[in-house]
């Protein structure tokens, strides 16, 4: 390592001083409260350090990294097919959706496309993971507010979706099903009919949650007007997914970019909400789950026949180049920037995860709110720790 320049030394000292500031517990004005890393509210090990004045937050700072697994370094020592099994675990609730952008980036570099049937099935599984992920969000929303019943309903209905994913891929949580050039296998018999049944059930679940939770006056008074994020701030921070759409920005990567997936073959509505508060974010997600069930129904109706795997060599060497692919994942925009040097494995993979940007806005949005509102805002921004920390 070369000698640190003066600027680097100064920045190192500044970082040490900032660390020391955070660790001082004995404050004369205000109380410093640590929410997490072990806490029922945070979806994993997120630590929020809040300086309070009574019940009001003066500043709050999330401290991520308790779950950092070093994915970007790990991908450098793996072959391309092996990376798939690794990146399943970034957003572990919407698991299949993590694999897709990476596979698409590798296919872009290899200049091959998966056959139409494989694209269709990929899209269906993608939307199923969105339903599984955001369905749990709807239940978890209740628990953060204190309504302990909806989360059990959410888990129960999520089981149906997980059974479907398991039936098709063999894995409930980490399917590891996508391959460069297509999919590992075709769908089992009877899967399509069962999926149609499950989609009906899920629409019923959405109605139930809307009645139980969204129609509740207490829930509305807890979420309306809380944590308003205007559209330009949202864009600056790179907020994505439902968070961006709830601030009024009409941007959905399924519709607004062309990828070799089957979204351009179905009709769906992109839901936005002008308010930008927590209520808007929750409401947009609810509508998106409903919309996903309709997308899956349309895809099932128009499923083409054919092979599920294109002709790829046994040992995959991706040609030299760089590719960036991002998709509309359940949590937001997730993308992979793949740099390949023509080897068996990638040279550098930059994982752009949605929750990293979504949570980077919390210092800005948490100024001046009450302590219960911290939980509300975090719940409505919706993050998965594996997505923040990779």
């Amino acid at each position, binding site marked *: 390592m070369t000698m640190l320049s003066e600027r680097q030394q100064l920045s190192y000292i500044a970082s040490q001083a900032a660390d020391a500031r955070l660790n001082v517990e004995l404050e004369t004005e205000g*109380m410093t*409260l640590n*929410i997490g890393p072990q*806490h*029922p*509210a945070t979806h994993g090990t997120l630590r929020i350090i809040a300086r309070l004045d009574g*019940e009001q937050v003066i500043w709050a700072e999330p401290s991520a990294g308790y779950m950092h697994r070093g994915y970007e370094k790990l991908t450098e020592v793996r072959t391309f097919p092996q990376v798939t099994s690794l990146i399943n675990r970034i957003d572990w609730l919407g698991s299949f959706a993590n694999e897709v952008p990476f596979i698409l980036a590798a296919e872009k570099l290899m200049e091959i496309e998966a056959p139409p049937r494989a694209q269709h099935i990929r899209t269906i599984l993608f939307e199923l993971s969105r339903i599984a992920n955001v369905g749990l969000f709807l239940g978890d929303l*209740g*628990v*953060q*507010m*204190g*309504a*302990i*019943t909806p989360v*059990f*309903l959410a888990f*129960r209905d999520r089981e149906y979706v997980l059974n479907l994913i398991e039936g098709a891929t063999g894995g409930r949580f980490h399917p590891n099903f996508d391959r460069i050039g297509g999919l590992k296998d075709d769908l089992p018999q009877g899967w399509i009919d069962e999926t149609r049944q499950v989609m009906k059930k899920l629409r019923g679940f959405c109605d139930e949650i809307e009645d*139980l*939770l969204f129609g*509740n006056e*207490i*829930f509305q*008074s*807890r979420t309306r007007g809380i944590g308003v994020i205007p559209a330009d701030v949202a864009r600056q921070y790179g907020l994505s997914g439902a968070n961006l759409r709830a601030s009024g920005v009409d941007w959905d990567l399924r519709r607004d970019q062309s990828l070799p997936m089957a979204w351009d073959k179905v009709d769906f509505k992109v839901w936005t909400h002008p308010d930008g508060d927590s209520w808007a974010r929750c409401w947009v997600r609810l509508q998106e789950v409903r919309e996903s069930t309709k997308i899956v129904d349309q895809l099932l109706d128009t499923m083409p026949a054919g092979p599920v795997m294109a002709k790829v060599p046994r040992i995959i060497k991706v040609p030299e180049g760089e590719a960036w692919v991002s998709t509309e994942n359940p949590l937001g925009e997730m993308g992979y920037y793949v740099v390949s040097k023509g080897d068996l494995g990638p040279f550098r993979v930059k994982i752009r995860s949605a929750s990293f940007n979504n949570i980077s806005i919390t210092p800005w949005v948490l100024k001046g709110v*009450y*302590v*219960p*509102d*911290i*939980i509300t805002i975090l719940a409505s921004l919706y993050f998965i720790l594996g997505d923040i920390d990779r």
Partner: protein
Amino acid sequence: MIAQLAVEIPYWGQSLLRVVGGLVAVLLPAGTIVYLFLFKMMSFMQSRLGPMEAGPFGSMQLFAEVGKWLQKEDIVPENADARIYKIAPIIVLVSTFLLVVVIPFGPDAWFTNFSAGVFYALAIGSVSVIGILVAGWSSANKYSLLGGLRAAGQLIAYELPMVLAVVGVVIQAGSMNLQDIVMAQNTGEIFGWSGIGFPFVLTQFVGFLIFMIAVQAELTQAPFDMPIAESELVSGYMTEYSGFRFLMFFIGEFATAGVFALIASVLFLGGWGIPFSWFGWETIDQVDNWMNIAGPLIMFTKMMVLTGIIMWVRFSYPRFREDQLQRFAWKVLIPLSLANIAVTAIVKVVV
């Protein structure tokens, strides 16, 4: 009181029976509430079964839990104020026991018969606030402190609607003695028809609602469970407690729910009686002795119904934020209860 059963029991026997009766009156409702509503009703509402292993249909689960808590290590945090820390749960539990002594279970099955029973009950109900606040502060834990402070604000705010709602009942009954209130309800008539007596819930409906909401807040149950706010403060003021002390808080919470439900059934639902016109009784001396056995059972039933409603609301609603909660108490409930008193007084004078 036991003399009516034609059995001569010496004074110490009577006192012993009173003590046992008091313990049963507090712990039995608590246990039944915990099992029936917390374990079973909540589970069924959440599409799961609840405890099934301990005993048939999990009925022994409560004993298993009690045993579990009793054998845990007695931990006092190092920075905590040890004496206050240990006293706090006792304060909360003792206030519940003190509250149950004034509730009549039958024409002669009562512990004490204060002429200002209502006044005493409401006053003692506020003692637990001290216990909670002290528990939060002495735990040397910021979460507990936040929970304790929130609890203090909330409980004091909701004392007022509770008291004011009861004032309407007192005006209507014309007495603060709980036994008299029961008699007034069971011997009363509605426009000359004495078919169901005159439970005060009919005319004091607003008062009943306010009382039930205030009770929900006094018990720090959802939607008023900011002090415990499980997803924020872990357990609020109870965070640092474990073992037997936590058991005292736990029992205190559900026992208080039962006792407040008993008070509500005395004040609004007719207490231990069923309409006396069915039996032709006019005064309390005419009531038969078997009512001393049936009275507690009737009270138990009424208490179960009310507690079921309390728990049902607890499982369904999200929680209020602290300032919304206070606003609701001061700006909505108190004016409403004052209006209730005014209307009751006017009607009492006019009619």
